[in-house]
């Protein structure tokens, strides 16, 4: 057990899967000698050699095409897309190719590819670096989308993602990279790819969140606890698939729900959760579904993030509104 940042936990997981399975490969822009622009792959090329950890030309479709082809020849690729906004360049390879491989070949050929990519606001990056694009990618059948909210989950979910034989989009939150530290068990452990986590138990209202917003939700739970309001916080961990069972169970207890996301409100994860609740648990509610999401504008980069991303304040306002309905 050692205190590790989110980023160190990811490096730790990569080290383990490289050690464990000689068929795993890490590649992407600057991941070799430079150890990645965030140092996520630091030391791995040195330890495992250039055959296993290597740089690619700067072309995202090429990187994921490489992954598809390597998958077909028996390898287990872990490509990196340097920033999630760059994944638009590779949408055919993700949605049109990787995600369809098992379906096309009925499992005779598959694509055990884990795409790692950083995303998320709060660090004032350039345009097309921080966008929360899960709304877009969760609409792709055959692709799992994983969004850890803390270092412990990041390590366990990454190990599960790599060992899983389906293609996984593993989204690493930029703001959490160095701002969070957890006690991380040494060695291998896994966190399941289809189970949400009740990170705080409570009785009065449920907050469903994922990624960096889980920590904002926990802050709100702390604040409201001082007013004797008991908030249950659910961390989805994976946004495709979404574990509705855990959400329904919580709602049956609290009868109120606020769904929180950093991404724009339209047609996305929160909308999917709200729709699932409407179909499967609406009679348990005694207030409307509350939603906290970013405005439906284009993602504003750099300092524009500060007035745009919903954080604890907006969550607290919405929770109070639903509690007082």
């Amino acid at each position, binding site marked *: 057990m050692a205190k590790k940042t989110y980023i160190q936990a990811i490096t730790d997981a990569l080290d383990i899967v490289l050690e464990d399975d000689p068929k795993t490969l890490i590649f992407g822009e600057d991941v070799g000698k430079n150890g990645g622009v965030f140092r996520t792959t630091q030391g791995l090329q040195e330890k495992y050699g250039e055959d296993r950890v290597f740089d690619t030309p700067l072309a995202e479709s090429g990187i994921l095409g490489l992954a598809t082809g390597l998958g077909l020849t028996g*390898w287990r690729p872990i490509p990196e897309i340097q920033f999630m906004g760059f994944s638009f360049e590779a949408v055919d390879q993700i949605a049109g190719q990787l995600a369809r491989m098992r379906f096309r070949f009925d499992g005779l050929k598959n694509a055990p590819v884990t795409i790692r990519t950083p995303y998320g606001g709060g660090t004032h990056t350039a345009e097309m670096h921080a966008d929360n694009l899960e709304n877009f990618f969760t609409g792709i059948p055959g692709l799992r989308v994983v969004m850890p909210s803390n270092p412990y989950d990041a390590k366990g979910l990454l190990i599960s993602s790599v060992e899983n034989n389906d293609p996984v989009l593993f989204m690493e939150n930029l703001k959490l990279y160095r701002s969070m530290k957890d006690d991380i068990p040494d060695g291998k452990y896994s966190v399941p790819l289809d189970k949400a986590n009740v990170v705080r138990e409570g009785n009065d209202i449920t907050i469903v969140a994922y990624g960096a917003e889980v920590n904002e939700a926990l802050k709100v739970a702390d604040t409201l606890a001082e007013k004797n309001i008991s908030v249950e916080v659910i961390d989805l961990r994976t946004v495709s*698939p*979404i574990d509705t069972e855990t959400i329904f169970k919580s709602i049956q207890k609290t009868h109120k729900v606020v769904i929180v996301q950093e991404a724009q409100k339209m047609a996305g994860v929160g909308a999917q959760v709200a729709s699932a609740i409407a179909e499967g648990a609406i009679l348990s509610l005694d207030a409307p579904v509350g939603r906290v999401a970013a405005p439906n504008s284009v993602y504003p980069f750099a300092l524009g993030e500060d007035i745009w991303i919903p954080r604890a304040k907006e969550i607290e306002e919405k929770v109070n509104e639903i509690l007082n309905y």
Partner: protein
Amino acid sequence: MANKPIVDFEAIKNDLSNVSKPIQVLNENAEITDQEVFDTFSDDDLVEFMKKMVWERALHDQTMNFSRQGRMGFYAPTAGEEASEMGTVLAMKKQDYLLPAYRDVPQLIQHGATVTEAYLWSRGHVVGNKFKARSMMPQIIIGAAYVEAAGVGLGIKKNKEEDTIAFTYTGDGGTSQGDSYEGMNFAGAYQAPVLFIVQNNGFAISTPRVKQTAAPTLAQKAVAAGIPSVQVDGMDILACYAVAKAARDYMVAGNGPVMIETLTYRFGAHSSAGDDPKRYRTKDQEQPWFEKDPLIRLRKVLEDKGLWSEEQEDKLIDEYKASFKEAIKEADSVAPDKVSDMLKRTFEIPTPEMKQEIDKFEAKESK
């Protein structure tokens, strides 16, 4: 300002058109233009090449009939491209990987898929993709196969698979896709053994080759990626085979990728789905290409040698067509796909929500 320009861009541009003539062994008048290469083929080889082209033409004719009868899904006609397709694929070995595009179903069958599987693929039935061959299914996204082929090539290299390369195909339109450059560039960067084949049939649906790019040849597009490339007479099966085999030999010796542009022609429509070439081609434009028909020139050589006859060819066509009729009967007899199975093959283990969906469909399907 100096009077003498620092650089003469016009001269550089003009120089781009200084390219070698396409490689050819047998011209459209059935004259041998490269005796040395021609002599490497035995009489049996020549007969085998002819049989393969007759087979592909018969496959085209019969499959288009099935299509008109409403018995096919999407299918891309191949008449005119037999030399380019059979010539290159015959240079493949069983252990090679194939990444075909949608007009490359004949190559997929040559590489080990059955005609029944090809027909089921056309119909969108999953059994059509369960072929044993080392191949992807025919790629619909032009260019996508090129980036994937780079990965397959690197995989072959990492696996240390001896005497093995990847073959991939696209068309003239496909070379305009960014992916086709990315694929060649990656394969070049990793010196991965991939044979990139561009079947330049003159038209991307209706858009003529000249509107596709200012590059004088498509083969030149490989140059920027550091890849040797060559144009081949795509109506000459002897040239197509000899060049593909030379490329393969070069790569299995440990060298990086090669690109071949075959100059060919699609005699018919783009696809079975209502394209009408009369909208964008004139008879005058088509006629010279019909005269270049790859079957005509080899047939003449074989007849002159006393190795071929019309009766023999007719008999073969009947045999082949009978086998395609058997194949489509077999395809008809395969049980229809089920929605529950479609759900089951989306993920290795269905998600909890999908399990509920599967139960729902299975209940319906068992009624």
